[in-house]
């Protein structure tokens, strides 16, 4: 029960800067989820729930596929997506004209430029020494700002305790030198955990290998530090466009535009003050 982030000391060192956390002795840790070998067993979902004592959040059937989880949320920190679609001409082992299943285990991206962390007014969301993004449950006051700020729709507020919750990348396990529960439970090594640099290299190799083997549609998602979120700490190898998996194709952290927003808000405030002064000064004809 005490595995929730609330049990962590509230004032962990903030870790290295936001840009590329992990410049210190402790490398930035992350996930590489290779969906080409995911078999949709949902062991990651179960292991995550078990280890982190995440409460049950609905036992409904969606009726759309084998996915009865639906999506990530306050009490779902790993979510396996199921997509049934016509296989591409030179498909991954299946013949042309047949159907194929895409399965992908989604998770918090632990963005380099994390919108949830930027907008959190209490400082409850923080960057750990592993470069991951974690909610301190004992600080969060449930303002809900992180919820619409996340470009991936990951974090959410729990109805019963009123706080925001999401994947911690098993912060407690990492502290003890263990790998996150989902990666440990994954039977096919679809979920790989390690230093982000190594994972990026490994992922590049895997994409090349798949393409050479005829899977032209293989692509990486979230591995590029030049993208709209400065690169994800948890990135993916996908076999179709991101939106097919429910992922935004080109997410940009909202705070990149914040300076412009402040500027316009400032000008508007000045205009309001100016208008009020003018209306009071200006004599009646």
């Amino acid at each position, binding site marked *: 029960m005490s595995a929730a982030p609330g049990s962590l000391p509230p004032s962990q060192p903030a870790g290295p800067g936001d840009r590329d956390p992990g410049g210190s002795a402790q490398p930035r840790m992350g996930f590489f989820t290779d969906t080409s070998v995911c078999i949709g067993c949902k062991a990651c979902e179960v292991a995550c729930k078990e280890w982190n004592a995440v409460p049950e959040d609905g036992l409904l059937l*969606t009726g759309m*596929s084998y996915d009865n989880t639906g*999506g990530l949320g306050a009490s779902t920190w790993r979510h396996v997506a199921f*997509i049934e679609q016509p296989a591409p001409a030179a498909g991954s082992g299946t013949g042309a004209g047949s159907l194929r299943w895409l399965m992908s285990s989604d998770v918090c991206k632990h963005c380099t430029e994390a*919108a949830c962390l*930027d*907008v*959190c*007014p*209490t*400082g*409850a969301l923080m960057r750990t020494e592993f470069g991951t993004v974690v909610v301190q449950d004992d600080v*969060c*006051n*449930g*303002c*809900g*700002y992180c*919820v*619409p*700020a996340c*470009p*991936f*729709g990951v974090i*959410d*507020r729990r109805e019963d*305790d*009123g706080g925001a919750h999401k994947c911690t990348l098993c912060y407690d396990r990492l502290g003890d030198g263990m790998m996150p529960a989902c990666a440990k439970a994954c039977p096919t090594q679809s979920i790989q955990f390690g230093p982000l640099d190594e994972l990026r290299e490994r992922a590049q190799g895997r994409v090349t290998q798949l393409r050479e083997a005829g899977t032209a549609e293989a692509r990486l998602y979230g591995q590029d530090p030049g993208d709209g979120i400065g690169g994800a700490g948890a990135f993916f190898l996908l076999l179709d*466009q991101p*939106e097919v*998996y*429910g*992922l*935004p*194709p*080109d*997410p940009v952290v*909202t*705070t990149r*535009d*914040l300076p*412009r*927003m402040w500027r*316009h*808000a*400032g000008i*508007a*405030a*000045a*205009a*309001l*003050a100016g*208008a*009020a*002064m003018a*209306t*009071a*000064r*200006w004599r*009646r004809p």
Partner: protein
Amino acid sequence: MSRRGGEKQMVPDATFTSYYGRPVIKQPVWRTPDVPGYLFLGGLAGASSVLAACSQQAGYGELARAARVGAAGAISLSAVALVHDLGRPARFLNMLRVFKPTSPMSVGSWLLAAYGPAAGAAAAAAVTGRAPRAGTAAATAAAVLGPCIATYTAALLCDTAVPAWHEAHREMPYLFAGSAAAAAGGLGMLAVPPARAVPAARLAVAGAAAELTAGQLLKRRLGPVAEPYRAGRPGTLLRTGEILTACGLTAALAARGRHRAVAATAGAMLMTASAVTRFAVFEAGQASARDPEYTVRPQRERIDRRESARREAGA
């Protein structure tokens, strides 16, 4: 426009794909009427404080008093709404645990912490007639912070991944400033006879004009992303707000500082219009978060534009 040689499409897909039509981003968990109500009340309070200070200066004492009291009342209700909206209301003081310019909510919390007491003190001095000097000082402080209270909420909404809010970040602050001015002016016209509320009527007219203009510019520039502002319930709400604003504006001009009943009606219409507009903006955001198309399509088009630019550069 598929060509040989593995070249990719030159034009964006006519259809867009999603994961079983499920939303990509989460809908804001902020509740109605707490948050849209606060958007209205915060604007009303902030603009009323400026109006109070300016009309005091110009010798409209009765109007200044009414505006001070209105500001204090509106900001008190705002505080209640904001605390009530928290998932853990007992921890509202955690808002002042850190100061983060990257979080409009943090900036807003500090603004409110300074503005609220100032507006309250200004109103108390106006009502009791005691400590007029301290009252004027407090009113001046509230007047300086007031415009920020009225417009920071635009940055608050726009600094999210919600397409109808984020993409509107250029127009929203002006829409909110205009709406706040119209509401504050409207309150003054409602509370004080027109001959003694001239600045209120002028501010109301200017605010209503700005509100209408910013709303039109927003809808035009955003194109398809602005659809939630036109369609469905938020669309109806916004149209209602626009009609009320236009009627209030006309009535305010028609009152010509003489007809009490017309001026009061104009004031009431402008205040209602301001509130309705904030609810419309809030609900348009909810609608745009619910539908994955608003999230996916602009991003996919951005990728396509980037790729075709890259191809042209390479060619």
